[in-house]
């Protein structure tokens, strides 16, 4: 059996404030285009099934447009006779009573199987069992849900979250939606993962397909696309959907450069042909503050007119020393809060008797808020 594995389409993601001639967000449009291209690519690959491992939509309450784009894609796939398996991810699973899952709209469609109920679901296609664990609210629930799996002998596991070994490597420790490595059992024919936006193999049989699009500069080094997987031998081939459109230029050392020289560097890097429809970041090291200030900002913004986004990031030569002298005190939010309360209570503004209780309650609330914020770090304001 051959499947295509994709994830993290984030339909509805918009950003970078660039509009097209119809007044639509260019980044958002690009994401829709990418999804359409992915569907086309999948149809041309003629797999026996498609697995989308979470985060189809960027928001729990998507606008009509992403819903339509998704429905159109689903229809095309199923019309081509390709069944689709989908799980909800941290972005598109509701976390409050006020919202229902957007996937309710697509339930009941022929050949579309959706796991979105915070619980394990199994779908049997051909001779394989697809074990789906969608987004769950508490980390412990993944273990519980995993415990419900009964192996058929030919099994595929679909999950959404960051596996701990990947987290350790990337040194991202706070508030991530984490999956234990212990869930990546050897006896699955294939484990399709979503959440991490780069293509990555995290165990012999477990892969992140990555997203189709580049969403932020943290992903500049990632490979993107689909994975075409042969379940018989477990081989996963990377399939490119569209050329890379993110360029994070290596930092340019500008020590001693005049305004004109800096401008020249920028002009060179921002050739209109080269920047069209791209997301570009240029880092200037050791720039003289005075020289950079004299660059004409209007002209600078015109440089990136063809790009979806152009970010020039100056690191001024006088900044480094300042940083060396006074490293910023970074405490956790909870610690700051507790310190603030102690200070207030020392000065008699908060009664000592209730300080501890307030600190305990407040810290817990803050911790939850931070965790919630970090899981939706990509959320644009609605």
């Amino acid at each position, binding site marked *: 059996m051959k499947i295509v594995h994709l994830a993290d389409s984030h339909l509805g993601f918009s950003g970078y404030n660039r509009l097209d001639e119809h007044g639509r967000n260019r980044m958002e449009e690009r994401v829709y285009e990418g999804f359409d291209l992915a569907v086309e690519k999948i149809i041309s690959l003629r797999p026996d099934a498609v697995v989308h491992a979470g985060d189809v939509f960027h928001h729990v309450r998507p606008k009509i447009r992403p819903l339509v784009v998704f429905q159109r894609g689903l229809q095309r796939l199923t019309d081509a006779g390709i069944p689709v398996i989908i799980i909800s991810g941290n972005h598109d699973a509701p976390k409050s009573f006020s919202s229902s*899952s957007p996937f*309710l709209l697509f339930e009941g469609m022929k050949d579309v199987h959706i796991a979105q109920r915070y619980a394990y679901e199994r779908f049997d296609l051909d001779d394989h069992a697809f074990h789906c664990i969608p987004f769950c609210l508490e980390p412990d629930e993944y*273990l519980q849900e995993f415990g419900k799996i009964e192996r058929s002998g030919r099994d595929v596991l679909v999950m959404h979250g960051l596996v701990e*070994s990947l987290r*350790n490597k990337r040194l991202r420790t706070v508030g991530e939606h984490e999956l*234990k490595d*212990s869930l990546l059992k050897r006896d699955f024919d294939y484990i399709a993962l979503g959440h991490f936006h780069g293509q990555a193999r995290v165990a*012999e049989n477990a892969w992140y397909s990555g997203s189709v699009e580049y969403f932020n500069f943290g992903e500049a080094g990632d490979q993107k696309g689909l994975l075409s997987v042969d379940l018989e031998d477990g081989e996963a081939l990377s399939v490119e959907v569209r050329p890379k459109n993110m360029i994070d230029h290596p930092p340019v050392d500008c020590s001693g450069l005049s305004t004109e020289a800096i401008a020249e560097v920028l002009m060179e890097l921002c050739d209109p042909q080269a920047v069209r429809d791209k997301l570009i970041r240029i880092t200037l090291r050791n720039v003289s503050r005075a020289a950079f200030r004299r660059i004409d900002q209007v002209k600078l913004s015109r440089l990136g007119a063809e790009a979806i986004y152009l970010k020039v990031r100056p690191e001024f030569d006088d900044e480094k020393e300042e940083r060396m002298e006074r490293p910023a005190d970074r405490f956790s939010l909870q610690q700051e809060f507790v310190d603030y309360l102690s200070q207030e209570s020392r000065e008699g503004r908060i009664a000592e008797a209730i300080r501890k209780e307030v600190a305990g309650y407040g810290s817990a*609330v803050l911790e939850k808020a931070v965790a919630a914020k970090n899981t939706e770090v990509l959320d644009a304001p609605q």
Partner: protein
Amino acid sequence: MAQEKIGGEFGAGILNKKSLTPENTTYRIISKSVSEYHFIVPFDLPDAERVEVGQIFSVKDYDQSSSRKLTFLARVLDVQHGSNYDGNWDTTIKGTQFFDRDQIFNRVIAEPLGCVRDGSFRKSRTIPTKFSPVSRAEQEEFQFLRQVMGDIEIGYLRNGSRLVEEIPVALHSDSMDHHMGVFATTGMGKSNFMKVFAASCMRLAARGKSKFGLLIVDPHGEYILGEGRKGTKGLVHLSRYSSSLACYSTDYKNCQMPQVEEFSISFSEIKPEDVALLYNWSPPQMDALEAISRTFDSDNWLDEIQDGEGLARMVREGFKESTIQVLVRRIKNLLEKNAYIKKRSSLPNILANLQNGNVVLVDIPRMSDRAELFLLSVLSRYVLEEYKKEASDGRKNCLITIEEAQRVLGQGSNTSRFESIAREGRKFGVGLCAITQQPKLIEKQLLSQFNTLVVMGLGDRNDRLQLEESAKQDLKSLDIEIQTLEKGEAVISTLGIPFPVPVSVHKYEHYLEHLKAEKAPEESLTSGPGFKPFLE
């Protein structure tokens, strides 16, 4: 005034009374020094009132008029027959009755635990006033001992053979980067103790209060699920705090559990000195092993030495071909036998869990002694090296447990790695928890670095002597107590608790129930019923 000098109010009582009863002499401090209190009790007490070794008594040094308001707490070390007669009176027949009931008694020898002054408990630097009344310690007095207990609950305080359930004995997690020793002969409840200890650590970690990560390498396969045939349970059964437990196993069946990751180490994490542990090497072979690290790339030496080119390079270094062939053969053997050596590695995950203060269980059942040592060596070296690097924010210390520690910490053992953890680990926040049946085999100097000792019955006098000599607290006085320990009982000497404590260790299965039913402290404030969205 003269009366005052003799003994205050009590002395006055003696002088004014015409006849005295035994109550006037028993249960009163009569001697002898700051480090040892004596009092006498009737020689024929009923069973319920018998004085036992280990019981705790309180000495009330009160005086209504003056400012004497101390309560001393003392623990019985020994009970002896005593009398006011000289010579062999108890075996000499004279007349119809050879003794007078008032003149014989039992002498109780007790050691001071400390004294309560102004509501706080501290070490005693003085002696109770002579004839101060002695009574069995009551709940109220035991409460003072609560003040000195830490946060890792182990069991209940033992008062003789009775339990004081109101006083849980708990170790201080602050002192856990110092080393810890668990000494017990087989069947005394060592693994039960370790499970209770780990469970308490999991509880702390789940509440975000953990100060160290605990690494347990279990060669007997008894911690993960307990032993089914004995009806015992394992750490996995503490599902309430499963978020702070990370399990790794080499056992296929155990790996089927969702929370258990397959244990593996990668080729590049093995160093020649780990291989050195596995066999008895001749001096030339040892030389060759040592030469490997300077001849080959340290990440790839296992591959390089196995091909012909590698052999040639070693020969060029001046080693005999036959020597190298033995080496290569043994290395091949090692790689074939130990299926957990792979491309991927669990070590970074293990390290991250330790640094986050979680409990890490590495389950390696049915592994040979040498293979286990090898694995332990790779694991502990990795951990120590990573801890030597600059500490990141919020990194927790770690405690590595070693079963049968006499193998690696004994005199003349060739496993200097563990010794180096024992000697320098503390600087980097790595502590050892050595578990052994024979402390006498452990080097004295190392033993003296252990600040927490858990003694669970040691029959061998030499074992006890070795411990007494190196313990931070005086265990000599507890010699009788240690000899008479029963299964599940322990004497714990640790920093933070000012005296060695007799403990009845919780039975893990009961503790499990207790932990499951326990109410979380913040429950009332923050965690309400969890959000479950409407599922249409």
